[in-house]
């Protein structure tokens, strides 16, 4: 699964996105919100990378910066051979059809004053010089593809259900036949029964069109369902990047562990048996992250070194990358011992239920 393709379609190298903070009399640049602070990963063509993490950890920013909706502070984003992060404006515009985005809130990402036809054909207006009829034909085709009734062309976004709205968003993203789509929490705002529809649709499309996804979500079970590999983010950095089966069965990073333990199982029997790690302490501000490991303020297994030295994301097991001193400190051999130690310490700082 890991080595699905020889050359990855998407490569992100040390991506940084700092939002400047200006203060003082002359609006001096006095600091940055380090929303994304050195993130690297790659996605093979036709695969899905899941990106999870708590609210505000920088997931959306990663997605948006990759598509140059924000100007990245540093780093490279190579999509299909071009470094998107440094393309000149016109070339970037030309590049856009190959990379698209599905937004978190289907309501907010659709202009309430435009009809479905307008919305879906907008990319066509920008990037093709087709006739009206051709465009309309393509719109219908897309509607069929995402499962929207052709009779809905003249409806406005508010006349659709949430799931249908998200389909419109997907149809818009598909209009120019992209190869790579960033799905920024495409299901977070939806009803459970509709979530499944959208996820299935994404899967079907991937199969049919060979799409590559970056799937951002905080719904861990959905990510597990969709993604081959998963990156867990915390405060602008990747804490762990592992194949999803490995991650879900045996998370390595303490934060990934806490995150997974917090998921509720829809089964009363299981729910009773599950052990949750409830994190204590406040989430630090991304404008002023802790000096060492980002997670050291809340980590149940914090060590002294965590407070001073930033751990690097290193491969601790084949295909599994973790940024944690528990593993790096011990070197590659220590990796296998770590889980044991983890279990012993659980009762000391994390709360066990």
């Amino acid at each position, binding site marked *: 699964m890991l080595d699905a393709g020889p050359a990855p379609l998407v490569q992100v190298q040390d991506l940084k996105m700092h939002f400047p903070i200006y203060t003082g009399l002359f609006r001096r640049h006095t600091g940055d919100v380090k929303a994304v602070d050195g993130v690297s990963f790659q996605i093979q063509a036709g695969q899905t990378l899941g990106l999870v993490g*708590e*609210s*505000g950890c920088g997931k959306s920013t990663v997605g948006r910066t990759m598509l140059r909706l924000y100007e990245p502070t540093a780093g490279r984003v190579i999509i299909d051979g071009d470094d998107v992060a440094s393309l000149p404006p016109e070339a970037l515009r030309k590049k856009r059809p190959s990379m698209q985005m599905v937004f978190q809130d289907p309501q907010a990402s659709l202009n309430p004053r435009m009809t479905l036809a307008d919305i879906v054909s907008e990319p066509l207006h920008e990037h093709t010089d087709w006739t009206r009829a051709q465009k309309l034909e393509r719109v219908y085709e897309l509607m069929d593809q995402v499962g929207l009734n052709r009779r809905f062309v003249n409806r406005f976004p508010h006349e659709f*259900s*949430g799931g249908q709205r998200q389909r419109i968003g997907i149809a818009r993203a598909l209009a120019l036949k992209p190869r790579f789509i960033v799905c920024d929490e495409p299901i977070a705002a*939806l*009803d*459970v*029964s*509709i*979530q*499944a*529809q959208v*996820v*299935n649709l994404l*899967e079907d499309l991937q199969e049919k069109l060979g799409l590559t996804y970056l799937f951002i979500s*905080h719904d*861990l*079970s*959905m990510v*597990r*369902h969709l993604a081959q590999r998963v990156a867990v983010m915390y405060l602008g950095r990747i804490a762990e990047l592992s194949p999803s*089966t490995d991650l*879900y069965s045996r998370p390595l990073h303490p934060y990934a562990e*806490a*995150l*997974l333990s*917090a*998921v*509720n*199982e*829809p*089964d*009363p*029997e*299981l*729910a009773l048996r599950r052990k*949750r790690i*409830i*994190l204590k302490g*406040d*989430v630090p501000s991304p404008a002023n992250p802790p000096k060492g490991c980002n997670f050291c303020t809340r980590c149940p297994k914090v060590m002294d070194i965590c407070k001073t030295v930033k751990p690097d994301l290193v491969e601790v097991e084949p295909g599994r990358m973790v940024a944690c001193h528990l593993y790096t400190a011990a070197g590659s051999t220590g990796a296998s011992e770590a889980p044991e130690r983890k279990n012993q310490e659980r009762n000391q700082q994390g709360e066990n*239920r």
Partner: protein
Amino acid sequence: MADLAASVLEVRGLRTVFRTRGGEIHAVNDVSFHLRRGELLGVVGESGSGKSVTMMSLLRLLPMPPAEIRGGQALLDGRDLLSMSDEDLRSVRGARVGFVFQDPMTSLNPVFTLGNQIMEPLIKHLRMSKAQAETRAVELLELVGIPDARSRLYQYPHQFSGGMRQRVMIAIALACDPDVLIADEPTTALDVTIQAQILELVQELRQKLGMAIIWITHDLGVIAGIADRVMVMYGGQVVEQAPVRELFANPQHPYTRALLQTIPRISGPREARLKVIEGQPPILNAPLTACPFRARCEFRHDACDAANPPRRAIDGLPVGQGHDVACHWHAPAGREAAHA
């Protein structure tokens, strides 16, 4: 855990409609349920099924017009909330029934300090002095797990994270030690770690204060974790109602079954494909004369078009007490069937 005999809240035959320019919307149709002291009743159902409207109707919190309560009773310790005077109702709101709304981001007034907003009901209902109210407000904030509560009292909502705001909303709802707490999707907008913190808190409070809770959510995982009893709503009515284990083990209504199947799991084998409930939710522009779920139901038959099925008990207990369902179809019993 629950005392079977005493119900704090009893709702009978509630009907709420919205009059809009495009005609009437029958959002709540003949909803009846009850809530026992100390019990946590989970309410699930798809978006637009009338969960929020039902609960807001109880306290007449809907904007009227366009909303109109067409009938029913909501007895709080025997007194009907729907017919009492505005003045009496105000003394119930916040004092005996606490309400936590769906969206924590907008439910707090952005221009008043939290202290002010927490103290308001204390001063009004418990006639506390300002100093007393302040002490109590600090207690409440500590109760919901906000550190450094005293200085937080003078902060504004935007200075709090979403999870903290939700906790503040809970603190406000709890301020006067209400008998009933209605929580409308309090954790939907939050991410899992914060959600976990809040669930933790609610369980703790329930044990400490012994109040009854109605918990609305989409997340069956949450229900599974904390509810005593579950009520499933669809198309503005209650379609199934059962103790939590019973419901997960033996879902009766096709909607409930479908719902349980759509959710991917965090453990166990990965589903090849998620189950979906095909079709659209019903348009509630007229009183129901047939089963609202019939268009999407895999077990649909003639009876479904002929009449809206009444709720019937399936375990011998009276309707509302044990497991009941509103469906013409009789499901085979057992957990396996649910996961078929």
